């Protein structure tokens, strides 16, 4: 027994030294990291104090300040680029972008970005793409489009972000054909298309005609960037046998607004067997006063909840609809509460 205990103690003493070493290394890591961070902050603050006023002056078209930035030591240039480029994430003022684009070549931005684009480290490639996009370096559109096929998903997402910032019509096709690429983040795909606005509409409509399999995606995309021009196609798609296509088309029509033909189809879709389609049909009819829409919508106030809610909101938006709601205020069920809620909200002075 003593021998067992003795051997165990031997093992434990090895363990103890291992534990001491581990705790010491971990503590040292914390200290070193904090010291490095503090030094970095001091350096950054120093560089900011020195260059931030120059950057502001250069952006205000002061050529002397721009020259001074160009003459800065190479080791300061990343900090200067940061001061110039990072604010562009939130400030997309075309004038500021143009001025920044004019200043950055003098501080070796392009060679640095190109070097980063060729880096084996994906985060450097992503950083370069973001920077090129933010300054709208349209002479690099081809390189950014090529990065959409990068093996790293984060770089592909950064390329999409860059194309969103770039808004170069030459890249529209590349963005649109990646509408169905599940390896790219869905939200960023939507943001990229939305950035092009109605410029992408014709292209999407043409693609949708030859690629019926992805029609629901095209309809969702047209909800972001479609105009009245897309209405006939969307109206046609409301009759698609696939419920998800009908629902997406009706949702897009809700954003664009319906005309007489589309409204008639939306009223017909209110009787669809799929609740998603009925809900979107009710949403599409919001603001539409013709074709006895109010009576049809009122018939759905006791439908499934998503349909009822959208029907009530649509009724709230037209005088005939308000009359239908008023007729139901005395009911004690959910329909009555819904009608009273819509009328109360309509009257509330926010």
């Amino acid at each position, binding site marked *: 027994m003593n021998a067992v205990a003795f051997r165990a*103690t031997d093992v434990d003493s090895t363990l103890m030294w291992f534990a*001491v070493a581990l705790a010491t290394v971990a503590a040292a890591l914390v200290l070193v990291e904090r010291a490095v961070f503090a030094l970095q902050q001091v350096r950054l603050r120093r560089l900011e104090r020195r260059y931030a006023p120059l950057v502001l002056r250069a952006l205000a078209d002061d050529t002397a300040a721009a020259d001074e930035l160009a003459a800065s030591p190479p080791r300061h240039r990343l900090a200067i680029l940061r001061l110039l480029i990072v604010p562009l994430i939130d400030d997309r003022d075309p004038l500021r972008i143009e001025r920044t684009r004019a200043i950055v070549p003098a501080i070796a931005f392009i060679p640095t970005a190109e070097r980063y684009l060729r880096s084996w480290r994906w985060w450097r490639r992503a950083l370069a793409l973001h920077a090129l996009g933010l300054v709208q370096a349209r002479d690099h559109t081809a390189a950014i489009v090529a990065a959409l096929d990068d093996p790293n998903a984060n770089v592909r997402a950064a390329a999409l972000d860059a194309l969103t910032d770039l808004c170069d019509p030459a890249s529209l096709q590349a963005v649109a054909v990646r509408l169905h690429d599940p390896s790219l983040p869905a939200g960023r795909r939507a943001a990229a298309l939305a950035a092009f606005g109605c410029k992408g509409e014709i292209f999407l409509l043409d693609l949708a005609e030859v690629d019926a399999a992805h029609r629901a995606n095209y309809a969702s995309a047209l909800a972001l960037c479609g105009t009245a021009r897309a209405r006939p196609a969307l109206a046609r798609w409301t009759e698609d046998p696939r419920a998800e296509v009908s629902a997406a088309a009706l949702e897009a029509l809700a954003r664009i607004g319906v005309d007489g033909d589309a409204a008639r189809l939306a009223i017909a879709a209110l009787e669809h067997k799929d609740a998603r389609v009925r809900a979107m049909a009710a949403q599409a009819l919001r603001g539409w006063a013709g074709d006895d829409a109010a009576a049809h919508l009122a018939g759905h106030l006791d439908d499934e909840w998503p349909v009822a809610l959208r029907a009530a909101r649509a009724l709230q938006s037209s005088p005939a609809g308000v009359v239908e709601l008023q007729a139901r205020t005395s009911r004690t069920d959910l329909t009555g509460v819904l009608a*009273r809620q819509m009328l109360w909200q309509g009257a509330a002075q926010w």
Partner: protein
Amino acid sequence: MVTATTAATVIVAFSLLVTTYFVVWNLAQIAMCPVAALFLWRHQQRHSQRARALVDRLVAPPLVSIVVPAYNEELTIVDSVRALLALEYESREIVVVNDGSSDGTLAALRDAFQLAPAPVAFAQPIETAAICGMYRSLAEPGLVVVDKINGGCKADAANAGINAASGTLVLIIDADTVLEADALSRAVIPFLDDPATVAVGGNIAIINGCRVERGRIAAVELPSSWLAAFQTIEYMRAFLLFRLACASVNGVVLISGAFGLFRRDAVIAVGGYDRTAIGEDMDLTIRLQAHFRRRGEPVRIEFDPNPLGWTQAPEDWRSLRSQRCRWRRGLLQVLWRHRRLIGNVRFGILGIGVLPYVLVFDGLGAPLEIGGYAITGGAAALGLVNWQYARVLLLVSVLLSMAVTFVAVLLSDVATRRYMRGRDLVPLLETIVLEHCGYRQVNSWWACVGTVQALSGKGGWGTMKRRSFE
């Protein structure tokens, strides 16, 4: 003679078991460190400032309903709601659920936000205690107050809020949670990136010691009370090691009740929070994981290591004991309820990795530790303790645990940049060392008390002394 030998054998066997157990546990945590660090680094790269700008550029960002269950929150509720109204995310509504408060919670809200009784229609897919009234704010269009009969638990109030919510996403927070201004803009990103995302949890920190102005953190300070400081370190370990490691393998099993953003339809599909669950947040997270995995549908539960919210930690022993015993009962209840998932390959990493880890280490750790102290005491009384061995065992355990804590602090530094001033360093180091001088042992004891309470069917939430922020 035979009895003494048998006792010695039992003691050596038990000490070997305890040594092995704690070494393996600490090594498992140390193994998590690089996994968590890698996940954190990747997360920071992916969620760059440019990526976060995405939300501002969306034509129609998802509507988020912020559900605030409030029970006797008169002191903090107005500040909390004001802070929520000032969030940097425009597409949001706030649903405060007054869960039958006996104090002036509703009156405080009525006075501050000009509440008026108003018809609010909503379907009730989840059953809750009866609703007494609905109020809309005449000052703030996005504020709804649901006044209901007390349901006896936060789960019932949260369910009422989820019913009344009109957003596609629902954020469930505690009434005293203070959110960072960009918390929602950050938390919605995973939902935008991946349609399989059903929930996102956030890194929560201790607000004690910080200066709060108009519902926002004005100055970050380490808590002055030792109890709160120990909990600060505990939160770092909990949020930035285990949960990050779980998130890296899509095996998150706990989204804290202080901050959880969920897809509303997913929560409704699993029946909302379980009113009978003590650890309702962990129970819901596991049910979400299990529901989608059982159906073979893709599911992702994300965890954001960036600072999203702040919560009050109990500063008196009674409140802390009550909280820890409840957490323990909740953990055991959840493990028992989901026992069929443990070791079940059908549920992937959740079944074969995360839940077995929780069972073996979180479930058994405290009883083994207290058992170890008891056996050592008994053996000392019989003169059977090998003191050198006991000393080494204790030291190894403390040092490994400190190493893990240091890594957690390192990750916290990278993720949050809190407590980074020079003057924070010494108190932080003191806390890391001193928590081993009684605090952790007391916690283990409370865990054992909680275990006994769970086995004897004792329940209840207990109470926590709350303080106004200013």
